[in-house]
């Protein structure tokens, strides 16, 4: 908890103190948003174990609703993000409530369908999304990329807080039980349907707000980008790289993802699918807990000579 507050304050003040370029500053702000989105994906994909290949649907809904609300009602952007997020959460419940009774691969494939169907509808519903030409935000109403750094940080802080709450609270225990065995969880009084709906709604809402943030950041959105399958893959990759089902892992995953995206792939854009594919394969085969698992392994190796019976301490740490 203390570490969380310290990190927050440091990141809040960092741009004032550190002489980083404006480009890097903006990228860090965008990374905060990706971190929040990856954490939100992880609540469903990691904590409940329901891998979603369709989270771009909520990202897009959040983004487009936020832009439409801004254009039509001239509301402040924070309110617009929130409305976009809430509607994205409702949309998530709309398809998720019936499909969440499916487990494992069945649910995952259904989400591929959700993502594709949403993308098709959004692309052809040009009255709302502007079709292939997209929508632009009026610059006057919009915060600058420079200011968005701090809003991204708030977004991240909220996502981290919810992550801890979802893991530490009674709901968190219920989610672990659901992940292990739905029927057994039901037998001991866990309302699996309600718990999963709550998690999906939270996940969809936060990803929707992230979509609104992204729309403000780009000042322009089009459905092919917002609803693309690649975007859904992005959320999965960040969580898996960082450590699926860990509390903070997706944050590290998002950093790696953005570094790959912005700096390595800028010159080799034709290789990005394959690179992500190879990363996925390697992580699943050798370190299913991603960066978090790797860090734990290293820490154990360093500490082992000093204190051999570190089993209890490791078990405690493995929840973080």
């Amino acid at each position, binding site marked *: 908890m203390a570490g969380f507050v310290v990190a927050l304050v440091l990141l809040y003040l960092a741009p004032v103190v550190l002489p980083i370029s404006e480009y890097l500053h903006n990228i860090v702000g965008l990374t905060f948003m990706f971190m929040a989105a990856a954490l939100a994906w992880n609540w469903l994909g990691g904590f409940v174990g329901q891998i979603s290949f369709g989270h771009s649907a909520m990202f897009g809904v959040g983004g487009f609703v936020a832009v439409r609300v801004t254009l039509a009602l001239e509301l402040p952007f924070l309110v617009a993000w929130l409305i976009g997020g809430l509607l994205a959460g409702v949309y998530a419940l709309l398809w998720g409530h019936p499909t969440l009774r499916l487990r494992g691969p069945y649910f995952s494939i259904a989400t591929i369908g959700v993502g594709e169907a949403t993308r098709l509808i959004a692309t052809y519903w040009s009255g709302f999304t502007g079709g292939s030409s997209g929508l632009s935000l009026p610059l006057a109403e919009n915060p600058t990329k420079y200011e968005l750094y701090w809003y991204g940080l708030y977004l991240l802080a909220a996502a981290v807080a919810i992550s801890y709450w979802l893991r530490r609270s009674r709901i968190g225990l219920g989610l672990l039980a659901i992940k292990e065995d739905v029927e057994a969880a039901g037998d001991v009084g866990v309302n699996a349907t309600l718990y999963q709906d709550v998690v999906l709604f939270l996940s969809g809402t936060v990803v929707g707000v992230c979509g609104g943030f992204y729309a403000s950041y780009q000042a322009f959105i089009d459905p092919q980008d917002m609803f693309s399958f690649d975007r859904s893959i992005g959320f999965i990759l960040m969580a898996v790289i960082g450590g699926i089902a860990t509390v903070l892992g997706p944050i590290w995953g998002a950093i790696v993802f953005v570094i790959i995206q912005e700096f390595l792939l800028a010159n080799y854009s*034709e290789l990005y699918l394959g690179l992500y594919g190879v990363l996925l394969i390697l992580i699943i085969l050798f370190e299913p807990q991603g960066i978090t698992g790797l860090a734990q392994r290293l820490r154990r190796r360093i500490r082992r000579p000093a204190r051999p019976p570190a089993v209890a301490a490791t078990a405690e740490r493995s929840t973080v």
Partner: protein
Amino acid sequence: MNEVFTLAVSAILLAGFYSAMAYGLGLIYGVLRIVNLAHGGIIMASAYLTWQLFDHFAIDPFLAIPIALVVFFGVGVAIYLGLVRFLPRGPAGAVQSLLLLFGVWLVIRNIAYLLFTGNEQVIHTEYATSSVRILGASFSVARIAVFGVALVALFALHLLLTRTYLGRAIRAVAQNPDSCTLAGINVERVYVLTFGLGTALAGLAGVLASALFAFTPSFGASELLKSFVIIVLGGLGSIVGIATGAAVLAFAEVFSVYVVPPYLTSAVGFVLLVVVLVLRPGGLFGQRVLR
């Protein structure tokens, strides 16, 4: 009336292709409890293989079928031995295999982009545009040929699964791997061969798809989804189940032109999936699909 007849025949022809497409996915899932997310990628790769064979060696797509079967049987065995074998069995393995095979799909797609670019490809055979008339309505020769091949493939598969030692071993392992070990069946070998067989069937579907559709490296996503819808609708138990699931999907898609704009045709399968799951969580025939 005539229009309804034309659409119905189209749906039946499409259903043939769909059942051939779904069987590979269903076989692997039934035996290994793994959803082969690379299924769509294999279909796409096989379409490109067929195109290359046609372009460079003038091999007719339908004559390329044995080649594709052998090649993709090998690919499947390699994917199993090189990757899938190392995953844990059970629910934990199910999530991991999903992500792993998704990674394989991404790699296959990237290789296709590098080799053939993202441009759309079509195989121009001499009979691609020719058609025959049945009861006053005309149907393309390629679609009828695809339907015939699909029927033959399903029948051959049925014989393999019911009349040979390997087929019986596959069905036994699908029911209970532990007992199979006790009965002296080499379960690991059955897994390898099943994965190879399922991938080879995806290869067959790719050849057939290349005769019907234009394709790009992204081709295969909706094929994966549709295959899955068919499995859920029809169950994993039998050829009849798969064929029924394929027919339901094909008819729903073809006749949806009366209800929704054409660009939403590919969303029909998904809507069907959700509706069936809500109304009959066990699939059309009441078999358990959840765990």
